[in-house]
């Protein structure tokens, strides 16, 4: 009998619940209107009576299960003028009863039993998304049902989540590190859109690993995340210059500063946490050391050139993955580090046009040069004995004639400043235009489409006249979202053209003698610089040296070198939620790139026509004069990956896993030709050539490289306190040895979020404290095709009617990818509500099985063989500290400091490298160089030289110290020992950022301390100089001249070559102002009347000064420049 109401009410309830879910909002509105205040005063009355009174006062029906709710119990209650709910709460909670108000009905149940009453627990599914204040999704945010510790969920990478609740009146707690937690009451809604406000500073919260994003607080690896705006603030045109400021262990290596600010110089050596592979050696010559990280743009690998030419306005964020836990998912490509670039997604909302203008002014920086002027050169040459008799007793009259001619020239005012001749102040400009927006959602059935059109173009002129690089790119990006399906498509085209300066290498200008005139009296440039130009024709000169005028050919001849690169790609991505928590992601990219390089050398060049050459008009000379080289290359890349991800949350356990695979095929082609026989300087087209270059033939290659990888990442987190991360990858490539087609990689990472522990709860000092550690292997795939395979190549002229094919190398079918075992320990913390942030890492990387040449018995027919041999280690720390001492409504000041120290050590080297050491030692005896040696136990950056005791004041000769401690004047290559190391004790960047309302002032300084440098300027421009070229002023002032002089540099008369000596190894402490910037954003209120919605102006100055304890010439073949950037961004 008594059960009936209950059953009825349960049925009733179900119906109500259904209708509620369908039109929850409406009902909730009704409900809020119906609220009335109650007053209840009872003393030892039964609950039933109290409820009767509530029913009377509120007019609501009341349901309960009499079996469970004991209404006969006597209670006392005193509630005055409380809203219905509050009154019920005060009444029922002490009785361990719960209630629910549904459509004028109060349902009373035993606490925590509502769910049970519904048949199964938490059966109301709530969906929604979590975004940051800008509307960008926040993956990894935790969602918890208040009052039920065991119910929680985590947002996925699109920021979407779902959670089951017991009631539509439940409250959800949204939290995410770095953001203010937010409690939201469902109020009957089944879909909630949450925007979290940043708790403190804007913090990088998502690690984009390229395959799948991860929340930073669940990341066990080491990564540096830089958002696009911060990057552009440092330098808005040069990606690498901007990025290096954010991570001290990211280094673009240009050891001697040879390439300066050459706009066409693409870095070929970038190191993250030290050098971890041996350089290529051929015929005992060191080939260029190439080590580059892998660059991933929107999930796919791109070349360093593409990154160099990327429009920086397209960048949303850049992530540098540094250790195994972060990078193992990239397997065989990751050993040099991984740089993940995410491009900007279309903004939502109505049509928005944003235009950015970047302009910059480059001013050559010649401050490192300290060259002699005309008078000093002459004095130097006189003291060096250039005008003395070369053998005792010889009549030096002719030489004195030369001296007098020069003297007379100087008296008449000749003092040519050659350095400025090829230089200009250059202006660069770049324009970016974004047109974007979204098509409004009409109803739930048609999805949401976001679109973006991006256009960019600009020209970069270098400070050397005629050198330039022009870029143009256009792209569209579409993003379609419909329920559980997300499709993106990115189509992009770009064209880059570049031109080398016809003025040639800058070193020609630093060496030209200032006492030579540039032009004759008619204003015509001299072809060669010599005294004959100005001396009376009947005068016999003792000095007949001449220099080529570095200007002549640039002024009069049409030689050129240009190149063009066209690139097209389409990138399609699909992201589909199959069932709750399970997602399928696929990305497919096709790209096609073509390159063309044209180089023309005029037939009138000094290379072909020397002075006084009587063969100039003979046919075979004529037909081989002038040369045009054309080379083409193209690459078609097809690649795709598929990833399945699964997220499972049970109580405090959170499990996330992905599994995926990728395939890539790359078809490369190239061809090149050389033609000669140009009759006329101006006939610069290829077709004017008479013939192919003698004995040359078209060259070219065609190859296909295929690679595949399967990978998985499993991440387990307990209560977001303890995290475990496992990654595995199996990589295969057609470049690997046939017997080693696949290589496995793995990593294990752990993290402890200490600040989430109970004992840390009640303090306000530490907001975030976490320690993490990881270990794993990553590989380096610096292979070329012929290393694993014995390849045949076609030989030159035929043998009879047959073209010869010969084996180019002995392939090693056992060759495998070299492996680096990375270990990393890191701590990160955040004190005083974000006022102090520190991230500190210690790492130890061991590279084993380095790809290196080993010597084999030449009776095999080959001398070397690539194999996995040679070990090296890199140890170090890097840290990044940010302090925000001032934060008010108008003001904010941030200070930052980062630094790194790396120690490199060679553990084991191959026979070939030992042989190289022997050969190169001998070479140092013949050539005027300081050499690069490899020794076990030393660093790759060790400097080798013979120890020096300085200059003997008696003779002006250098005194060397042998290994046995003996003093000698003789330099012997075997006495070279390690005398220094180029690794800095500490190197990094520091700076400040000051914000006042719409103003923003910032700076970054680059510092380095304790590195040893071999000062080549001392070696080459003060000593060991060519007296017939211009040199450093100190060659005149600081060299030994007469007995008794205590001098730093050897005798001024000593023309013998200088050998590598410890005298020129100097400790460097260096500071440079990397960038200084000021920006102003026009306040929105001022813009309200206009159609302009945002206007930001900024100016950045780069490389303003450079102070070093070492005075050394920089920018040898291309000068450095100081740059002032202007940027204006206008949104419509």
């Amino acid at each position, binding site marked *: 009998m008594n059960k009936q109401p209950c059953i009825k009410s349960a049925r009733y309830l179900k119906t109500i619940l259904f209708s509620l879910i369908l039109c929850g909002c409406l009902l909730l509105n009704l409900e809020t209107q119906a609220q009335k205040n109650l007053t209840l005063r009872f003393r030892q009355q039964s609950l039933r009576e109290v409820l009767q009174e509530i029913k009377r006062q509120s007019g609501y029906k009341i349901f309960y299960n009499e079996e469970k709710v004991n209404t006969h119990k006597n209670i006392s209650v005193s509630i005055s003028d409380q809203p219905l709910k509050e009154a019920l709460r005060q009444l029922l909670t002490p009785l361990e009863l719960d209630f629910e108000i549904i459509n004028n009905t109060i349902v009373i149940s035993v606490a925590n039993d509502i769910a049970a009453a519904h048949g199964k627990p938490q059966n109301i599914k709530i969906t929604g998304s979590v975004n940051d204040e800008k509307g960008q999704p926040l993956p990894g945010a935790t969602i918890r049902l208040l009052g039920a510790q065991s119910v929680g969920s985590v947002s996925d990478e699109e920021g979407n989540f779902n959670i089951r609740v017991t009631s539509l009146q439940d409250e959800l707690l949204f939290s995410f590190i770095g953001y203010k937690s937010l409690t939201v009451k469902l109020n009957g809604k089944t879909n909630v859109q949450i925007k979290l406000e940043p708790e403190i500073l804007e913090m990088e919260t998502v690690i984009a690993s390229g395959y799948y994003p991860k929340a930073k607080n669940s990341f066990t690896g080491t990564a540096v995340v830089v958002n696009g705006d911060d990057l552009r603030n440092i330098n808005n045109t040069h990606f690498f210059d901007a990025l290096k400021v954010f991570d001290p262990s990211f280094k673009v290596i240009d050891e001697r500063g040879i390439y300066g600010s050459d706009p066409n110089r693409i870095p070929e050596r970038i190191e993250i946490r030290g050098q971890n592979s041996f350089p290529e050696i051929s015929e005992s010559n060191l080939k260029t050391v190439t080590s580059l990280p892998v660059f991933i743009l929107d999930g796919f690998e791109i070349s360093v050139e593409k990154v160099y030419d990327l429009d920086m306005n397209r960048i949303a964020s850049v992530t540098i993955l540094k250790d195994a836990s972060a990078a193992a998912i990239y397997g065989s490509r990751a050993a040099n580090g991984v740089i993940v670039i995410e491009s900007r997604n279309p903004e939502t909302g109505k049509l928005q046009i944003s235009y950015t203008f970047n302009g910059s002014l480059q001013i050559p920086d010649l401050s490192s040069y300290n060259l002699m002027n005309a008078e000093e050169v002459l004095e130097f040459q006189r003291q060096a004995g250039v005008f003395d008799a070369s053998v005792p007793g010889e009549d030096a009259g002719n030489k004195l004639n030369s001296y007098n001619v020069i003297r007379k020239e100087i008296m008449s005012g000749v003092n040519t400043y050659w350095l400025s001749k090829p230089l200009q102040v250059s202006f660069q400009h770049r324009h970016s235009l974004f047109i974007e927006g979204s098509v409004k959602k009409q109803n739930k059935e048609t999805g949401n489409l976001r679109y973006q059109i991006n256009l960019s173009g600009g020209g970069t002129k270098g400070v050397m006249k005629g050198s330039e690089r022009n870029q143009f790119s256009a792209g569209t990006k579409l993003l379609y979202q419909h329920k559980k399906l997300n499709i993106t498509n990115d189509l992009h085209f770009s064209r880059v053209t570049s031109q080398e300066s016809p003025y040639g290498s800058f070193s020609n200008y630093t060496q030209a003698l200032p006492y030579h005139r540039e032009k004759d009296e008619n204003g015509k440039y001299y072809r060669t610089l010599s005294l004959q130009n100005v001396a009376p024709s009947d005068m016999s000169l003792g000095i007949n040296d001449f220099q080529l005028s570095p200007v002549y050919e640039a002024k009069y001849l049409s030689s050129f070198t240009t190149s063009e690169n066209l690139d097209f790609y389409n990138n399609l991505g699909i992201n589909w939620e199959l069932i709750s928590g*399970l997602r399928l992601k696929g990305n497919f990219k096709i790209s096609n790139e073509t390159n063309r390089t044209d180089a023309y050398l005029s037939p009138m060049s000094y290379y072909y026509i020397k002075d006084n050459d009587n063969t100039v008009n003979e046919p075979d000379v004529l037909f081989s004069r002038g040369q045009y080289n054309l080379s083409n290359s193209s690459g078609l890349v097809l690649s795709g990956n*598929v990833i*399945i991800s699964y997220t499972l949350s049970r109580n405090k356990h959170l499990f996330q896993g992905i*599994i995926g*695979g990728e*395939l890539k095929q790359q078809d490369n082609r190239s061809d090149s030709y050389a033609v000669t026989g140009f009759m006329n300087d101006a006939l610069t087209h290829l077709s004017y050539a008479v013939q192919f270059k003698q*004995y040359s033939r078209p060259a*070219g*290659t*065609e*190859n*296909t*490289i*295929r*690679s*595949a990888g*399967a990978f998985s990442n499993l991440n387990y987190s307990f209560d977001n306190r303890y995290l475990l991360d496992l990654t595995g990858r199996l990589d*295969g*490539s*057609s470049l*690997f040895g*046939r017997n080693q*087609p*696949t290589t496995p990689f793995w990593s294990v990472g752990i993290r402890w979020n200490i600040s989430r522990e109970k004992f840390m709860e009640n303090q306000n000092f530490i907001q975030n404290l976490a320690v993490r550690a990881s270990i794993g292997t990553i590989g380096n795939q610096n292979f070329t*095709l*012929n290393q694993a*395979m*014995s*390849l*045949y*190549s*076609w*030989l*030159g*002229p*035929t*043998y*009879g*009617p*047959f*073209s*010869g*094919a*010969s*084996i180019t190398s*002995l392939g*090693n079918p056992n060759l495998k990818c070299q492996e680096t075992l990375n270990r990393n320990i890191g701590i990160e913390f955040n004190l005083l509500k974000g006022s102090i942030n520190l991230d500190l890492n210690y790492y130890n990387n061991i590279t084993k099985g380095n790809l290196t040449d*080993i*010597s*084999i*018995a*030449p*009776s*095999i*027919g*080959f*001398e070397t*063989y690539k194999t996995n041999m040679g070990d090296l280690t890199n140890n170090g720390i890097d840290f990044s500290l940010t302090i925000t001492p001032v934060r008010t409504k108008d003001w904010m000041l941030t200070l930052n400091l980062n630094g790194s120290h790396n120690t490199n050590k060679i553990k084991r080297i191959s*026979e070939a490298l030992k042989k190289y050491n022997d050969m190169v030692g*001998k070479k140092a005896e013949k050539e005027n160089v300081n050499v690069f040696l490899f020794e076990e136990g030393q660093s790759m950056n060790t400097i080798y030289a013979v120890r020096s005791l300085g200059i003997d004041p008696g003779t002006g000769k250098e005194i060397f110290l042998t290994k046995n401690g003996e003093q000698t004047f003789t330099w012997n290559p075997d006495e070279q020992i390690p005398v220094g190391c180029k690794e800095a004790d500490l190197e990094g960047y520091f700076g400040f950022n000051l914000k006042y309302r719409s103003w923003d002032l910032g700076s970054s300084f680059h510092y380095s301390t304790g590195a040893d440098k071999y000062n080549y300027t001392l070696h080459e421009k003060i000593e060991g100089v060519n007296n017939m070229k211009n040199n450093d002023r100190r060659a005149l002032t600081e060299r030994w001249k007469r007995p008794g002089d205590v001098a730093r540099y050897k005798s001024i008369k000593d023309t013998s070559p200088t050998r590598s000596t410890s005298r020129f190894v100097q400790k460097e402490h260096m500071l440079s102002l990397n960038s200084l910037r000021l920006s102003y954003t026009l306040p929105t209120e001022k813009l309200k009347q206009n159609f302009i919605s945002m206007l930001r102006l900024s100016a950045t100055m780069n490389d303003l000064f450079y102070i070093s304890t070492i005075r050394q010439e920089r920018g040898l073949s291309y000068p450095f420049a100081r740059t002032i950037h202007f940027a204006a961004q206008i949104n419509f």
Partner: protein
Amino acid sequence: MNKSIYLFLVLILSSCNDWFDAQPQGNIGEEQLFSDETAFLNALAGIYTQLRENTLYGEQLSVSSLEFMAQNFVPDDEISKSLTAYDYSTPENQKMIHDIWRDMYNAIAACNKTLEHIIATEIVFNFTGQREIITGELYALRGALHFELLRMFHPHPSVAPSFKGMPYMTTFGSETGPALSTGELLEYIIHDLKHAAKLLYKTDPLFSAYNNSDEQPGKLSRKLRTFHMNYYAVTAELARIYLYKKEYQQAYNYADTTFHHIRQMNPSYQVFYYFGPGKYNSDKSFSREHIFGIASGPTGLTQVAENMFGERQIETCQSFKIIYPSAKDTRYRDWFQLKANTTDRFILSEKFSRESLLSGYTSTTSETKELPVRIPFIKLGEVALIAAEALNELNRTNEAAEWVIELQNNRDIDFIKDLKNTGTLTKARLAEEIRAEYHREFYGEGQLFFFHKRMNDTQLIRYDGKQFDMPATKYTLPIPANGLSVN
């Protein structure tokens, strides 16, 4: 769902090996190269092309180093001086010797690789016998090149019979063979050459008369056989080796066999024959007498010779007039010139000069009808001298004399004929004349040094005409450091 994941993984993992087997163009993987008949001809041509490099027969083993070591030229710089003084320890000479060793073995490695493929290939060859010819040439080259190394890097067995030095390489790979004794090596060499002879016997187009169908693309041309290790080159090489072993009867037999070509072939179809006075026009190296010679590249030997005798003006030895006592000698007339502004200094300016061209051969390029000089590997003259020396050693001096007379007849001199007519020819006198012919016949060809070595000559005439003691050890080039192993 699970099924599709599984399928995906299986797809990726199972098809790995095919997927990773990407073959590059321009550079070609071996499987891809050896997919048709022509490829074997290309690989073979590749070996001959390697042999004409400057480190080998393009310079060091023909006109340059070995000739300085034979005291045939007056040295003009540090390197050539050290060679005439047999100082093998200078860095330049060490490198030169090292490069010879490596590049010879590189050519041998190429023989082995090609043999590996031709033995295993299932391709049906279009031209009958061509498979046998190519295989034969490869065996012959392997044997002959090892013998060349043996002559350089081993002492003559009569001096040090148990010497162990170089390996005999029969496989391609990263493992080297063990050091073998001269006897063992000779066994291998003879074995390979005999095997080659067996393969080439009758299949070599030299045995058949010429007909027009011989000239077809992808077919080894009968006309160009002397640019390859042909059947008679193999028999001539065997004659050379048996003489080296001092097995005179065998040496004579093989020498005699070589002459069958001339005796049995209609003169208009002979590819090598004596090239009497007045026949040769611009063919100064007498290429019609080469049983096997290597075509020089367009910038090869010619340029080396031009540099040595044009720019450097390197003179012949001072005893030149004694070597060539007759001014009628076609070699004297056609190979040398008086050095400018001198009356008694000569230079070898003609033999390998730019103007010296092979006549009558089809060309490598369509532009010219003639080939630049050819580098002789083994020629008729040497085979005649082998026959003569062998017969003389077998005490058949009169028969032996006929071989020398025929050679000298074609050189327009008649020293032996005169001796024979006057009845004053003795075994010793003939031996002396054979020695003199080695001087005359191979000037600039790198053979004389090996003759001295084989004869264990302890006294030689230096380039300046003075006699000096030659220590036996100097005849043997040092095996390069790490030549056999790296440890």
